[in-house]
């Protein structure tokens, strides 16, 4: 019996002790009319060998193209030690650390993680993770509305340059509590500072900004932060953590720094894995920590005065505060945080910085190579980090299809999300791409463009 250890004798002895004839009797409080008669859902169970074979077939049916696609999820190299350790049974199969004394491993990892996140963001405090980047952004909006003592407004100004799905997810999650997302327009791939003044007439709770933004471009974060603060709003930073190894941390933006920073943790050692599990990180100024959603670990002392770690500030959470909790989040993304903590430890400040700079250099090499080809130009002039938008002389799927035929995942087609840019392509080359990889992309693109150039010209 899969995963059930009972012998027939065990079962018999247990039933006898309970005083029932068979297991079926234990379900006798269920109205019999409701009981399932025939349960036909998946068929016969497979052995481990059989499912193993099936999944190997499925996984190897899936292509593993050379990835030049980012758009919020990035193909970084993950050192072997990260997941070797994160999947150790003691991390993998533990519950949320409710019994602190039996969970010091997980708790200390989270404390270290929080430390690293505050360091990356330049903010005071961080939590133990949220689900992912998009939902973390939604939680940040809610937090800002709760935390902003200067304004009763439920409006959040959100740039059009922010990841489209982040905005969509925030919409879904915030609809219930009637938050309103107001779009900040863009110019040259960045938030249009010139458009701000028109929006200041109505009150707002916060301004959000993504750095680098969805297009990979660097936003005028100092100006946006100061402007938000100047108008009684908070500033929510959404930032790529790898980029923060070289970019100014949100806590240092403008005169007073962002109030809340959040974002997608995937770049920190989490494989692409088809979309998840990833994790969202969140940090903030200390003054508003009691509005923070999610779990937080603190260092304290034990009965003997020795240092130890425990979940803390739980009065914010659903299991204590229930309907008045800061969020309904309970299970978060602990294992991913463990992996990310190991990843950051392995890389250290230098390694993170090198990874970031290598991403930047590779993307530049790719963009410079591509824009030398006929029919490809940069869509924006703004400085970019490790992604950039290219304007094409033809629909993006044409180029992407030709690349796919050569095993290359060529980028993200922006036409659906940004019809005004069409045809345009968002490309990314992380540190995991070699010079040869980039050449392969350039060659494949050149072949297509010259070929069709010949055909049409």
């Amino acid at each position, binding site marked *: 019996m899969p995963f059930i250890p009972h012998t027939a004798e065990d079962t018999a002895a247990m039933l006898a002790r309970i005083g029932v004839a068979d297991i079926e009797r234990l379900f006798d409080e269920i109205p019999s009319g409701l009981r399932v008669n025939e349960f036909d*859902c998946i068929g016969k169970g497979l052995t481990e060998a059989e499912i193993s074979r099936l999944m190997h077939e499925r996984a190897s049916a*899936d292509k593993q193209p050379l990835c030049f696609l980012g758009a919020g999820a990035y193909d970084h190299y993950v050192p072997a030690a990260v997941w070797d350790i994160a999947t150790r049974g003691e991390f993998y199969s533990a519950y949320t650390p409710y*019994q602190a004394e039996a969970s010091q491993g997980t708790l200390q990892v989270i404390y270290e993680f929080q430390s690293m996140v505050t360091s990356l963001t330049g903010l005071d405090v961080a939590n133990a993770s949220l689900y992912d980047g998009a*939902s973390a952004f939604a939680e940040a909006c809610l937090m800002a509305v709760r935390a902003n003592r200067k304004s009763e407004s439920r409006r959040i100004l959100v740039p059009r340059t922010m990841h489209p799905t982040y905005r969509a997810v925030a919409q879904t999650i915030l609809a219930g509590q009637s938050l309103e997302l107001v779009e900040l327009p863009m110019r040259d791939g960045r938030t249009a500072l010139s458009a701000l003044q028109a929006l200041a007439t109505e009150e707002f709770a916060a301004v959000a900004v993504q750095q680098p933004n969805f297009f990979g471009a660097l936003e005028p974060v100092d100006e946006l932060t100061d402007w938000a603060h100047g108008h009684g709003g908070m500033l929510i930073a959404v930032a790529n953590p790898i980029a923060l190894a070289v970019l100014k941390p949100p806590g240092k933006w403008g005169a007073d720094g962002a109030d809340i920073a959040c974002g997608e943790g995937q770049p920190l050692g989490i494989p692409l894995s088809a979309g*998840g599990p990833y994790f969202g990180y969140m940090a903030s100024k200390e003054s508003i920590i009691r509005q923070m959603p999610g779990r937080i670990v603190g260092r304290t002392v034990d009965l003997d005065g*020795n240092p130890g770690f425990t979940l803390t500030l739980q009065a914010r959470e659903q299991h204590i505060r*229930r309907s008045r909790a800061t969020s309904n989040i*309970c299970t978060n993304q602990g294992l991913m945080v463990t992996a990310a903590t190991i990843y950051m430890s392995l890389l250290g*400040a230098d390694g993170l910085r090198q990874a970031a700079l290598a991403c930047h250099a590779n993307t530049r090499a790719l963009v410079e190579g591509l824009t030398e080809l006929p029919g490809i130009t940069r869509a924006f002039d703004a400085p970019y980090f490790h992604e950039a938008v290219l304007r094409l002389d033809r629909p993006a799927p044409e180029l992407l299809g030709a690349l796919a035929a050569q095993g290359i995942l060529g980028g993200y087609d922006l036409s659906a999300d940004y019809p005004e840019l069409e045809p345009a392509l968002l490309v990314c080359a992380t540190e995991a791409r070699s010079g040869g990889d980039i050449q392969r992309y350039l060659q494949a693109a050149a072949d297509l463009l010259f070929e069709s150039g010949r055909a049409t010209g």
Partner: protein
Amino acid sequence: MTMTEPIIFEYRGSRRQPFTPLSEVPANLPEDALRQDQLLMPQVSELQVVRHYTRLSQLNYSIDTNFYPLGSCTMKYNPRICNRLAMLPGFLARHPLAPEEQGQGFMQCLFELQQMLQQVTGMAEVSLTPMAGAQGELAGVAMIRAYHLSRGDGDRRQIIVPDAAHGTNPATATMCGCEVVEVATRPDGDLDLDALRTILGPKTAGIMLTNPSTLGVFERQIEAIAAAVHDVGGLLYYDGANLNAILGKILPVDMGFDVVHVNLHKTFSTPHGGGGPGSGAVGVGERLRPYLPVPIVERRDGAYVWADESDRPQTIGRLSTYMGNAGVLLRAYVYLRMLGDEGMQRVADFATLNANYLMTCLAEADFELAFPERRASHEFIVTLKKVTRDTGVKAMDFAKALLDRGMHAPTTYFPLMVPECLLIEPTETESKQVLDAFVASLVELRELAYSDPQQLTTAPHSTPVRRLDDVRAAKHPDLAWRGAPKPTSK
């Protein structure tokens, strides 16, 4: 065997090995966008990292090392093969935005999982996108709201929850802009149906229930409750956290539920990972189907494709950046395929057998049950109120003392209305030997409570740290390492 471990930042004087392929390059980025300060990160070698986190891992209790009868959490064995197969390179390397035709193997697994979860709940359709139970709840309540709104019935904002409900239920209702109305439980563990009837009315959006409930008993009046709620125009939400108890035995749809979420990390044995990731797939009946969160896998012309907002214009929308916790879904898929139909029912059988056996043994050992006349579902509640009254030793002290005996504690002080309670869920993967040892430990501890209470009130004694000062933690939050170890008050 190493019981304490410095903070990783405290390993000073060491340098990481460079590992990225490119050497330092000129930044070519605007000066004012760059970090000016030094990023504070550990500076350690790979060995130091491996040693540090290996040691830290050893400080944890886990299913792989200890019995873990944490009620409401379904801490069962997480098969290693599920992890192995979910981490096959083909799955790990897939970019979430890569074209569907490049990931048909992955998509097929998800499609089949949707179907399995449909059948196991009896629902019409399932969306896998919620990333934990609480997000499944949010999706569910949002769909209930969307349904009422679509019928011009937007005033229905009341969500009814039992007083025993898990905290995520009321918190979710609030997040969805609803008002929470609590309904009481009767002494026999069933809902107070009369009280419910007085609450129900034109403002009723719906009710959130788990069945078996968080009290460890099956709600016997479920048909009457469903009829009453439906009669006033409300809908029924099924919190699937306790599905393990009835897997393949009774379907939520047959109890009258309109929407359900399933905690894959509980019932379908994906790992809890020290606090996630989870997955809270939602299933709905026909009425709520248009509102399901996207994306959803559909099969069209023999290919698996994502259905999104354009295919589902009435959807409540998206809940995650891509499609949810794919890796968790793959683990659940592998687990389900290994169980098969029979295996699923067997899970419920033996989870129930273990709980009832443990309950019987404890009752015979004169522990006081919260609902002595009831069957246990896959969990049950012991109340220590008499012991506490007699000796001052509290449920928390028992919990801590169990840690000294190499067993994780049951859930304590939940549900809130049972005083000094232990909510005990052994799960089906533990053997009789383990259950017997647990009973023996509790008996021994109760004896100690009377003979030497201090042993319990100062427990644990053999864990890496002794009992921690939670009050100090909250009063003087120390939430991040700030560059130098702080002196501790010995």
